[in-house]
């Protein structure tokens, strides 16, 4: 089986690069943490990779809108190479700040294959503050998204101040029709949050937490799958451990929903 190489971006205030690289490696890929400027300077080429991860963090301190300056720099210096990268059938994931960057690049939602027009936005949370909390996601089985194949519900942490998904009505309709809405905030049983705080932590329209392009190969989401890389990340794991011990069961140490997203990506590139 060929090696799947993942480029994990770093630099300019990005964080989450270490755990994103760890999660991809855990999922069977080989991950490389690469400073944005190495791509800008053409020291490293996207041609050598099959997956690129725009990771979470505070690129450029989130000034002027989260992901805005990151997108400006990327579009200016790496934009065309990135379009070719997608065109070759590769995968792109944007997590939190990375999702914000993808929508500012116009890579998402990519309706009709237009990867340069900004038509959706992630803006300030309605609650008015940065928020760290775990959310439950309903995953759309009809979506073409490669990363969420075979998954229907997942819990993950959100950690952001600008995660409210917003778009004009027409765009929203297109997203619904194309099954591009991949992840929506829900209650713990998986019922739609319907805007209720804190289930929907930011006021996102249609409870949208993540979307993909029409091919399902470009995916962005506000929650952090890489921060659920181990069973002990889950807020209830100690209760779970205790209760299972009483019934003589072992903890489920299989891949977490976070790792499964990365495994889906790796196995897609394997079989491609």
């Amino acid at each position, binding site marked *: 089986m060929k090696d799947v190489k993942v480029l994990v971006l770093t*630099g*300019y*205030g*990005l*964080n*989450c690069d*270490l*755990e994103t690289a*760890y999660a991809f490696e855990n999922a069977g890929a080989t991950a490389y943490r690469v*400073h944005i*400027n*190495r791509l*800008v*300077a053409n020291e490293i080429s996207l041609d050598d990779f099959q997956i690129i991860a725009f990771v*979470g*963090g*505070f690129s*450029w*301190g*989130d*000034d*002027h*809108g989260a992901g*805005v*300056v990151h997108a*400006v*720099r990327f579009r*200016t210096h790496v934009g065309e190479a990135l379009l070719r990268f997608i065109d070759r059938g590769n995968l792109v994931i944007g997590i939190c700040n990375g999702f914000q960057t993808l929508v*500012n690049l116009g890579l998402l939602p990519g309706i009709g294959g237009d990867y340069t027009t*900004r*038509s*959706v*936005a992630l803006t*300030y*949370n309605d*609650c*008015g*503050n*940065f*928020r*760290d*909390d775990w959310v439950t996601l309903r995953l759309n089985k009809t979506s073409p998204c490669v990363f969420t194949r075979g998954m229907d519900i997942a819990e993950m*942490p959100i*950690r952001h101040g600008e995660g409210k998904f*917003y*778009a004009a009505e027409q765009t929203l309709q297109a997203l619904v029709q194309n099954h591009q809405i991949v992840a929506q905030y829900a209650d713990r049983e998986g019922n739609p949050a319907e805007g209720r705080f804190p289930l929907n932590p930011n006021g996102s329209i249609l409870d949208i937490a993540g979307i993909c392009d029409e091919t399902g190969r470009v995916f962005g989401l506000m929650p*952090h799958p*890489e*921060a659920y890389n*181990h069973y*002990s*990340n889950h*807020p209830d794991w*100690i*209760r779970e*451990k*205790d209760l299972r*011990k*009483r019934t003589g069961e072992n*903890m489920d140490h299989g891949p977490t929903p976070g790792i499964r997203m990365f495994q889906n990506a790796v196995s897609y590139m394997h079989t491609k």
Partner: protein
Amino acid sequence: MAIHTTRKKGLSPDQVKIMPYRLEITLKPELLDAEGEGLRKKASAYFGIHLDQVRTIHILTIDAALTPEQLQKIQSEAFTNPVTQVSSYDPLPLTFDWTIWVGFRPGVRDNPGATAIEAIEDVLGLKFGAGEAVYTSKRYCVTGDALRAQDMDQIAGELLANDIIQQWRIYSRSEWNDHDGIGFILPKVKLDHQPTVTTIPVDSDETLAAISDERNLALNPNDIPTIRTYFSDASVRSVRQQVGLSDPTDVELEYISQARSDHCNHNTFRGLFHYQDLATGETADEDSLFKTYIEAPTLFLKEKKDWVVSVLWDNAGVGRFDDDHYYVITGETHNSPSNMEAYGGAITGIVGVYRDPLGTGKGSRLIMGSYGYCVGHRDYDGPLRPRLHPRRLLDGVIEGVRDGGNKSGIPTPFGQVTFHPGYMGKCLVFVTALGLMPTRVGGAPAEEKKTTAGELLVMCGGRVGKDGIHGVTASSEVFSAHTPAGHVQIGDPYTQKKMHDFLLTARDEDMIRFITDNGGGGLSSSVGESARFSGGCEVMLDKVPLKYEGLDQWEIWVSESQERMTVAIHPRDLDRFMALSRLHAVESTVIGRYTDTGKLHITYNNTPCAYVDLDFLESGFPKWEFEAEWQPPEMRGLTEPVLTPPTDYGTLMLDLLGRPNVCAKEWIVRQYDHEVQGGSVIKPLVGVDRDLPSDAAVVRPVLASSKGLAFSQALLPAYSAIDAYHMTACTIDEAVRRLLSVGGDLDHIGGVDNFCWPSIQFHPEKNPDGKFKAAQLVRSCRALKDICLAYEIPLLSGKDSMYVDGHLTGRYGEAHKISALETLQFSATSVIQNIDDCITMDAKAPGDLIYVLGVTRNELGASEYYEHFGYVGTRVPKVHPEESRRLYKAFADALQLGLVASAHGIYRGGLGIHLAMVAMGGNMGMEIDLSTVPADEAVPGHVCLFSETPGRLIVTIAPENRTAFETVVTGNAFGQIGTVTQSGGDIIIRGAAGKEPLVSLSIATLKSAWKAPLGDLI
């Protein structure tokens, strides 16, 4: 990487002039303006000012030579989101009754202004030249009926801006000019000053003392003869003459002043205390509290504990995490700046303490931070007028640490808040940082570092301005619209994160020979200390990159401009180091080299500024001396209150749960990213509803490993009202119990002491109780040693902040000195071999047995219960370390055997409050029989429920583990006091079996009382 040198294609420089342009950006009207909405709510909640609507406009004032096409391009490509925003170079026509504009003062760090320049340069493919800049500001469009100018001024001055760092303007609708808007306000620093080195005569002690006062050097009068003797010495003068110097320069005296300051030299902790116990007549001369009570026990324990790697010399202490990694920890305070400008002080504090692990050994990656805030009451409405109301101050420090931590990509999984009126004079902002380093770098021990003659002295990170320089300039310069407001800073986590990533890469490539941070004292301190290893250095101050021209040489030398590290590199690594620095977009500059001449030699454009023997600071300075007089509480007139048990325990419980130091503070916790880096194991909030504060935090800093790092802190200043010895003992004990409760290892506990004390220097008028406060410090240090030895806690790091006093104006214009309680924050770490052993505090299952471990004593002195009634009392809680250590060992064994379902320490508020916490955590009821609580005497119900005796834990276990558990803890005080009942049930507490309940409350009622005061805040 690409460097853009093309400028204004097709235009020669003289065709486009530098001009100011003002871009206004706002959200489209259909979008909720969360910032405006937040302001509207605060104006109503804090001041009763009712606003109908607030819309926020972000303003970029671009002072640059740009063409109309370029302006249009940056507007659409960088600064306006077409989906959510509209923007214009003319004032946006939003409706308002009033508009409030808020911008920075000159010289204040404008982080978004700096990133705007990066964005413009990227979009346009050019570089900003000298004199070009971007300034950010905001305009709030306010609508509402019958709003007055004074309402707007209150909102501007007390919610939006702080006049130390910001300026504001208020416009009514009729005053507003639709065309000009706010005009062009350019907070540019213009100094028009020729840098000058001043020579200072040392003909007499009086002259030097006068100059020290005049220049705000704060030289200690006792130090002056030593300084004068040195500079008058014939051989010193003859050597100085050879380099062109005679009398000392201002650069030299500033250097000495910084190095001798209490902040850098810890004169208090190294001083001589004449201690006297007025009750017993005991007298003792305590020579160096540091050596006796911190250094000696830590060195003793270092010999016993092979996990202790490096203590007592570097920026932070180092302990072993596993075979390949060390963890690093230190704690700091940033009290005075936060008291002046809460946001700026706090963000500078947290970002600053993060540089300590980065500058420990050859450099550590930051893995965790924590906070501790001590402030006046949020709802204070008395006559005293602090600079910032406690509510506003707390909002500001919360936000400062939030931005500093979150934007650094470092989790903040633990923190505490303590409210007490004593912090009205000066607040406390504790910030703690943990890092991780490999055990070896380039084949050598990573915790070791030194400088060697011939190595280059490099400054990395931010530039130098008039930041954090003591008041000299502020008082001696005429204030103008272009005077930099430098004495309060705003930390820049973005610049520092870039530097952090760069320096760790340089470390991994083995290019770092020495690294330390620039904090207090700036270059003066970092260069001075690093040069002691090689035995000398030469510094060229003219090489230091400046934010703006016009700084005197001494200002460059002592400026505390943030986000800078001082690094020693070998000349052969220079090119590689600089290339890596450029890749990471970090500025690095060679500003000198290390020597072995024994001299600190400073020049500016080849003119000498300083030539001092490095060992001068280590010799001949007299110790600070203090009179310390202890009076036991009874001699101070404290008595135990005469109080009968209450009849309405239920209401009492609910009222105690709503007290400021007990009630829920989820709104703070959730603003902090506590799971970045992906290693969260025990979060700050636990339980079924994820809303109860955990005893401690646990992270997995090495993701591939199942080892955990546990961390906790404690603050119990209230007990200092009786005796700081017991305050200290109880604080350490609490931190230890917190660690053990999540599964910490009793054999590996590292400590960090952070002292915050009111002034202890006696003065008959200005500090009449100084001798008592000095005695409290001696007693506190004695307890520190006693408990650390008993629990075997080496002190990995520690700091002291000694002047926690303030003068507040009252109703009649009179000023009151307000001193804080003697406060110690104690932090503790432990390594957990396998995180699968970790447990949390929440009750797990109905039917589980509830135990109390440890003896309950009649110790209500300074308790939350007494405080509720306004009492202090005398029976302060006391630690029994041998008894407790034995118990902790048994408890830890039970935990390791998997017999424990939940564990929670009994802390502030006592058993009653903490049973409620365990019940609320599990959302389960409890049946409790107080007669089974182990006590050393028959205690009445209110003592049993609210005494704060340390050394106790609440433990729940599955019923089938009863025999095994009791076997393990036998020989210690324990009692099965009840059982966990059904989910959503009631907590029922009886004085004895079969008696009527003292307390019978539903979990929902308890939770609603606990969340009532602050639960609505987000």
